[in-house]
């Protein structure tokens, strides 16, 4: 029986990587790195995890190494944050069309400058279009569960795509909290050995990642996109099986107290927990407020999101990213596109908050809901609104 223990989320993730019996971990071991990789290097060094640990000289090399090992048929893991993810960016685009099921944890952090090591979603939001499956964890338990789920989905032959599990840097990665570490036996039941359809093998040579001349490049991109969209089916099925084995249920969109809601907050990541408390506070005051938590970000769960919104008239979207010079930020932008010219579409307002580790509080969510309600009556002149930031 799996035991619930107090453990740092990063350490729990490393233990979960071990439970997934990875073959190769390639990572840059210095800032911006977390204890995930540090603990994995210990597990490999003390012999409790039989894997290759490759401490490379940069994140660019980390992801390059991951591509090579995954192409050779090795179950491969890495982790990074912030500028480290940016340095990987070039290779992120290579992993997905090459259909390499690498799994990565990104401890989401702000992008310098000014130099920041604190949490927001600016690092990952600029990588939203790289063709990786992407989920966002609300707490440590979910991070562990989504990681195990990520290997299962990524390596499914119907999917064969890399996957990122996003956890909030510091706010999750450095917190000690109760987590049930699954039993090895259950993980083995859920996650079969990695058997790729094609792999680099000198005895059966194949070419992977050749030139895509204009006659084939377009189709290759379409194929990756179709595979990513189709992965949702496998993601849902794997979550169902996960629930049967581990007893914890996951869905692409989590709805919290949405019944008869006039305003729905839309959040991603660990601020969703504070948002639930804020919804309780506002409901106690008689306000009709609910919450939608986006767990699956890529592929975006269009039908599930629409169903969860139902006939709610107002969406207050909380973005942890600032799209410099843009119309609004990525999450709101996506949702506005989703509802463009849809009859009886909700009014959607974009709130930018919690950049660079600025705390996001219950009061902030109350302010967001108040503003969204007043904007619904009188259209604001701005396309997005800062919450909790001094503008002067």
């Amino acid at each position, binding site marked *: 029986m799996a035991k619930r223990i*107090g*453990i740092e989320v990063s350490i729990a993730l490393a233990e979960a990587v071990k439970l997934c019996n990875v073959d190769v971990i390639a990572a840059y071991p210095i800032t911006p790195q977390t204890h995930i990789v540090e603990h994995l290097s210990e597990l490999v060094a003390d012999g409790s995890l039989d894997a290759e640990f490759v401490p490379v000289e940069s994140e660019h090399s980390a992801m390059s190494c991951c591509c090579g090992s995954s192409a050779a048929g090795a179950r491969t893991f890495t982790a990074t944050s912030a500028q480290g993810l940016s340095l990987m960016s070039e290779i992120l685009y290579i992993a997905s069309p090459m259909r390499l099921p690498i799994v990565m944890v990104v401890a989401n952090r702000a992008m310098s400058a000014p130099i920041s090591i604190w949490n927001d979603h600016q690092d990952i939001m600029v990588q939203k279009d790289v063709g990786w499956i992407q989920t966002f964890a609300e707490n440590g338990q979910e991070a562990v569960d989504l990681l195990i789920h990520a290997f299962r989905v990524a390596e499914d032959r119907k999917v064969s795509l890399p996957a990122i599990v996003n956890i909030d840097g510091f706010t999750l990665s450095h917190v*000690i909290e*109760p987590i049930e570490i699954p039993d090895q036996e259950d993980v083995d039941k859920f996650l079969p050995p990695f058997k790729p359809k094609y792999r680099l093998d000198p005895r059966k040579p194949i070419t992977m990642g050749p030139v895509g001349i204009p006659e084939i490049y377009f189709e290759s991109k379409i194929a990756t996109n179709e595979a990513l969209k189709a992965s949702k089916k496998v993601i849902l099925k794997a979550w169902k099986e996960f629930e049967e084995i581990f007893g914890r249920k996951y869905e692409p969109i989590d709805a919290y107290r949405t019944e008869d809601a006039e305003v729905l907050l839309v959040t991603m990541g660990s601020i969703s*927990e504070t948002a639930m408390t804020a919804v309780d506070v506002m409901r106690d005051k008689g306000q009709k407020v609910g919450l939608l938590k986006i767990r699956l970000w890529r592929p975006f769960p269009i039908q599930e999101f629409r169903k969860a919104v139902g006939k709610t008239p107002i969406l207050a979207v909380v973005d942890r990213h600032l799209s410099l010079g843009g119309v609004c930020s990525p999450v709101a932008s996506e949702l506005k596109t989703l509802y463009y010219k849809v009859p009886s579409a909700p009014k959607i307002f974009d709130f930018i908050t919690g950049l660079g580790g600025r705390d996001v509080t219950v009061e902030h969510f109350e302010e967001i809901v108040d503003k969204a309600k007043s904007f619904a009556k009188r259209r604001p002149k701005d396309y997005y609104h800062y919450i909790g930031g001094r503008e002067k």
Partner: protein
Amino acid sequence: MKEVRIHGRGGQGGVTSAELVAIAAIEEGRYAQAFPSFGPERRGAPVQAFIRVSDNPIRTREKVYHPDIVVVLDSSLPALVNVAEGIKDDGIIILNSANSESQIREEFGLKTKLALVDANTIAREVLGLPITNTTMLGALLKATGIVGIEAVEEALEKRFGKLAPKNKDAMKRAYEETVIYEAS
């Protein structure tokens, strides 16, 4: 839910003591969070760590603004930082100090309930080092009962191995010697 803020100096083990309390509370079947104040780590500089303990799942990622309990590991800190900042009216400040209650109240203007223990002396005598994080855990447990002493002893054993017995002794001695004073 009880919220705790620990004041220490970088390298004094404030984060470790926060972790030990959270691990112990979770071991008791309750819910807890422990986290450091996220900043550039500087040895010797004033730093903070936080704990939340609750009988129900904790649904917040906010910082701790209004602690029920403040623990001060280093006797020089109250002169430098406002250790009473944001504390609840019925909160308690647990200080490492060899001074008397009246001296402390007068010097730092503290009005809340206080718990005092000379942790420097205990740590020097028992551990041979003026590192007070585990010693001050004894004062925290005595003054608040936030978590059972057995669960913390177990967490200490897992964390410190061979060094656990001395740390347990320091904690237990502080538990005995801590004196609690009602709000003035």
